[in-house]
C-alpha cells in the first residue's frame, strides 16, 4: 500500500512537471520530458499492478460469497421464476433503483482518484503523429504517452 501511495504521488508530481514544462522559457525539453514520462510509466505500472492485486483479492472474496449465496438460494429458485418473467416484460419501466448495479460492490475504481474526469480534446486539424512539426510532435508524443497511461487527464494537460 505504501508503494501504491508513493506511485500515486509520483504520478501526480510528474504530471505537474509535464504541465509546467509546457510554459517554461525555451520550449518543451525533449530529454527532460522523456525522463519524466519514463518515471510516470514506472509509477503507473506499479500502481496498476498493485490495483490488480487488490482486485484479485476482492474477486476471490466476492466469488466465495456468491458461492455461499448460491447454495443458500438454490431451494428458492422455482418461486422466483414468475417474478423474472414480469420483470422482463416491464423492463423499460423498471425504476433505476431496482436494476442490478453494474459495478461489483467493493470494486476499486480503475481511475486514480487524484485525476480529473474529462478526456483531453485535440484542436481541430491537429495531427497527433505529424513528424514534421518538431516541438509539437514531441509534445504530442509525450501527451499521447501520458494519455495512454492516464486517460482522464485533460485538465492537467489541456488541448493545444
Amino acid at each position, binding site marked *: 500500500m505504501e508503494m501504491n501511495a*508513493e*506511485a500515486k504521488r*509520483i504520478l501526480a*508530481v510528474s504530471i505537474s*512537471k509535464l504541465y509546467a514544462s509546457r510554459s517554461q*522559457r*525555451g*520550449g518543451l*525539453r*525533449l*530529454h*527532460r520530458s*522523456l*525522463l519524466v514520462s*519514463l*518515471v510516470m510509466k*514506472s*509509477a503507473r505500472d*506499479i500502481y496498476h499492478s498493485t490495483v490488480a492485486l487488490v482486485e484479485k483479492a476482492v474477486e476471490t472474496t466476492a466469488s466465495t460469497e456468491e458461492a455461499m449465496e448460491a447454495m443458500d438460494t438454490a431451494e428458492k429458485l422455482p418461486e422466483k421464476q414468475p417474478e423474472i418473467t414480469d420483470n422482463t416484460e416491464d423492463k423499460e419501466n423498471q425504476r433505476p433503483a431496482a436494476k442490478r448495479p453494474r459495478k461489483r460492490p467493493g470494486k476499486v475504481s480503475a481511475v486514480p482518484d487524484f485525476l480529473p474526469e474529462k478526456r483531453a480534446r485535440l484542436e481541430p486539424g491537429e495531427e497527433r*503523429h505529424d*513528424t514534421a*512539426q*518538431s*516541438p*509539437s*510532435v*514531441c509534445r*504530442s*508524443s509525450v501527451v*499521447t*504517452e501520458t494519455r495512454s497511461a492516464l486517460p482522464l487527464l485533460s485538465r492537467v494537460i489541456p488541448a493545444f
Partner: protein
Amino acid sequence: MVPSSAQKVFYLLIYFCVVSAEAGEKSSEMEWCFSQVKGAIDDEVAEADLISAVEFNYTGELLATGDKGGRIVIFQQNPENKSQPQCRAEYNVYSTFQSHEPEFDYLKSLEIEEKINKIRWLPKKNAAHFLLSTNDKTIKLWKISERNKRPEGYNLRNGPYKDFTSIASLQVPVFKPMDLMVEASPRRVFANAHKYHINSISVNSDNETYLSADDLRINLWHLEITGQSFNIVDIKPANMEDLTEVITAAEFHPNQCHTLVYGSSKGIIRLCDMRAAALCDKHAKIFEEPEDRNSRSFFSEIISSISDVKFSHSGRYMMTRDYLSVKIWDINMGTRPIETFQVNEYLRSNLCSLYDNDCIFDKFECCWSGNDRVVMTGSYNNFFRMFDRGFRRDVTLEASRENCKPQSVLKPCKVSIGFEISIDSVDCNKKILHTAWHPLDNIIAVATTNNLFIFQDKLK
C-alpha cells in the same frame, strides 16, 4: 526552502568531517591553493549571471565563460606572472561580449533562450583567437583579436577631412601604438539546422569541421560554410511515440578525425566511424554496463542518463558522467568501464526528494587533467571531486568565498560513511555543474552559481 545558516552549520558538523591537511592524512598527492574568484558577491543572484559554460583554450592562456544571459567573458592569464609559480593562475578579464540574444520562433510560438550551452575553442592559427559558442539553436564562430596599433598620418584624413588643395607634400601613414583593444566579432553564424535543443559542439582534429548535437541528431559542419551541414546521426523514430532514447552529449576523438562518440539518456555510449558510411546511425562500437537489478527504482532511468562524455587527451580512454558516478572507459572495451568513481552515492536514498525539486535533472560535467591522471567533476554544496586514477585516491574540495585568502590551501572535506544523509543537509542551490582543467598545468576553473573560482596546484 533554504536552510538557515545555523542549520547549515549544524548539519555540516554532523555529516561532514573536515580533515586538516596538517594532520598528515592526504587524499591526493596534490594540494590546491586558492587563486582568484570572479563574479558578484551578492547572495541574490540574477538569473542572467548564472554561469553555463567554462572552457580553457588549447594553451590554457585564455579561459572563456558563458552565462545564461548569452554573454561570454574571456579571461587571460597574466603574462607577467606566468613564470612565477606562486602567481601563475592569475587571470584578468580580456574580453566581454554578447554572443547570443533571445529570439522568438514565430512559427512555433517558442522563445529561444540566449543561454550559452557550450563553448569550444579552435586551435590557434594566427594572431587572433577563435571560438565556437552555441545556444539551443544557433552556433556562432567568434574571432577575438587584439588591436594595439592604429594608423596615423593620413594625407586627407586626420580627424576631419582636409582640403586637398591645402596639401603641399605627401606622407606615408604609420602605425603608432595605442591602448590595447580586444575586439570580438562574429565571423560565422550556423543557424536553422537543429529542430531540437543543441546540447554539444565539438571541433574535429582536422581543424576544418565540427559537430553539433541536439536531442535526436548530430550534424557535421565545415567551419567556412554556414549554408549547409551534413546530418551524420539521426535517432529520431518514425513514430515519436516510440521514442525511448535521446542524445545527451557528443564529442570528436582528439586524434582520429573520423571517430566520434555520443552518449544517450539510457546510459549508453556509441562510437561511430565516419569512414564506414555517410550516415552513422549504426554504431561501430557500443559501451554499456549491465544494469544492477538490485538497485532499480522509479528513477533508475534518470540517474543513468549520461550528462557528459569526454575523451582523454591521449584518446585511449573516455569518461562519462551520470547523476551519481563518473566512469572511465577504454575505447577498446565496451562491456564495462575500467574504473567507476562514486561522486555522491549518498544521494541515492534521496532521489525522490531530488526528483521533487528538479535537482535530479541537473547535468554535471567532468574533465580530465592535462596528463589524464586525474579527473574532476562537481557536486552539490559547492563541492567538487577529484579522482586520482594513478593513486586510486579521491578528494572532495569546496569552492567557497570563506576560503578566499590568496594562496590558502584548500582543506579536503570528507563525507562520513555510515551516516544517513538527510536531504536537508544537501544544498541543491549550490551546485558546481561546470569545471575545466588547464591543458598544460595544474590550474582548474570551477564555476559555482555565479562565481568562477580559480585554483592552482601548490608546487612543492
